[in-house]
């Protein structure tokens, strides 16, 4: 599912960043904007990729070309990419976390290895495009309906067997369980949190992520954190 909004001010978004997205409504319901990753840019439109899970995303689904929306951003920090010059980017994405790493993989111009997991075949999006922009794509589904049966992290672990983890730099975005497992693979790199947000700009402290240096804000100090920085419960 793709969505595009006219890019009036032409903000330049970088991989890892996100937008707060809302619809105009006098009823104030939904009240807050919702965070969505910068997915890609096509000409004069910015695209986000989203899954319908609740109130706002259901409204988004009903939007038609020309409808007015409110978008704040780009917000948050960026995936550092310097290390990927001498190491192979190993990307692990789960569910809509693929939206976050998509522009990153594009930026790596075919050098990234992608492990992409979902519950079932239905959740795996953009397979053709992803194959085209990455060096290698491994799809993993929990039910085995497509590709590797298991999680994307399981698939990555298999792949790493016999390889030197220091040859790779990790980039991962997905549910917390995945980020925790990916962090335990022993590869240094970066993970992007998808903690619930209210303001997206660092003032509400709602999006707290527990780190070695105390709570940090996913929206302002993140969403990208170094592996090992976040403490998972």
């Amino acid at each position, binding site marked *: 599912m793709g969505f595009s909004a006219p890019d009036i001010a032409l903000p330049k978004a970088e991989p890892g960043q996100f937008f707060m997205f809302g619809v105009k409504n006098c009823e104030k319901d939904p009240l807050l904007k919702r965070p969505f990753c910068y997915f890609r840019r096509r000409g004069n439109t910015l695209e986000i990729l989203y899954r319908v899970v609740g109130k706002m995303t259901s409204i988004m689904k009903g939007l038609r070309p020309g409808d007015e929306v409110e978008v704040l951003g780009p917000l948050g920090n960026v995936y550092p990419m310097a290390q990927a010059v001498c190491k192979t980017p190993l990307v692990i994405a789960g569910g809509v976390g693929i939206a976050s790493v998509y522009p990153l993989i594009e930026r790596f111009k075919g050098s990234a290895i992608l492990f992409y997991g979902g519950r079932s075949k239905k959740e795996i999006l953009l397979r053709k495009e992803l194959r085209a922009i990455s060096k290698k794509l491994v799809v993993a589904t929990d039910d085995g309906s497509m590709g590797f049966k298991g999680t994307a992290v399981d698939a990555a672990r298999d792949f790493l067997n016999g390889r030197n983890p220091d040859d790779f730099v990790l980039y991962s975005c997905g549910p917390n369980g995945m980020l925790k497992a990916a962090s335990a693979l022993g590869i240094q790199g970066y993970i992007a949190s998808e903690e619930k947000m209210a*303001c997206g700009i660092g003032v509400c402290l709602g999006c*707290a992520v527990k780190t070695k240096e105390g709570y940090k804000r996913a929206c302002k100090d993140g969403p990208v954190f170094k592996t090992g920085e976040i403490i998972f419960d």
Partner: protein
Amino acid sequence: MPARENNNNKRLEVKLGRLKLKNPVMTASGTAGYGAELAEFFDLSKLGAIVLKGISLTPWQGNPTPRITETRCGMINSIGLQNVGLDAFLREKLPFVRQWDVPVIANILGTSAAEYTRLASALEEAGVDGIELNVSCPNVKEGGIAFGLDLKSFASLVRAVRARVKKPVLIVKLSPGAPGIEEFSRAAEGEGADAISLINTIPAMAIDVNTRRPLIKNRIGGLSGPAIKPIAVRMVYQASKAVKIPVIGMGGITTGEDAVEFMLAGATAVAVGTATFMDPMAVLKVVQGIGAWMERHGIKKASSITGAMLT
């Protein structure tokens, strides 16, 4: 053009005790951080005042996540008064926000009267323009709520802090759970507060019926946003009837009209909170909205709206 702007500034001016505000709109504590984030969006000197995130003597970690959940026309939060503590505040945060020509109001919280008075003294010395006593945070046991719910300890706390604070205006933020908002307002006034502010968030809860789990980790949090506005307007009305000192009204303000409603009920100034989460520019839009309302209604001075409800 500048002349007109000056004019406008004067039109919107209100006073909180000795403190003059360019306009009646301030940020609500805990919705503007220490100013740095909002400064990326607009010129802070356009605010009536900036009320900063509550600070305690030592840093507080805050509550586990999830800390926030949206409910119909509102949100519940349980941040747990996470803050950097007094020292870091004075060293890193206060100097930044002082760069703007805007009154700075520090919000303080403690677990004992001694902590409140130490904070107040340190902040007076640091030159803040106002101190808001937070005795009403529902999210941590230590958040002073005990002071907010018991009239005697409330009065003695206000007295103790008042004895220390000379220059900055002293604002006391009331708990919506206070048994008898009039008595608490009068007690604050009697003990020498320069203004009272209300309402803080209202204790609330929400459960995900599919997972059967509470939607915030702490189970109970504070409800804010448009959902609580009618309650807040009522309490501001009652408080302002009970006292002569100015009342700062807040609770679900998202537009200039909302702000005017609070002022008609008796508020001298208003604070914008949750709306900033919806839109970082919300506070300024409320300032503009009040101006536009005044224009439409031929009102020359914002201060004349206070308590001007017709019956």
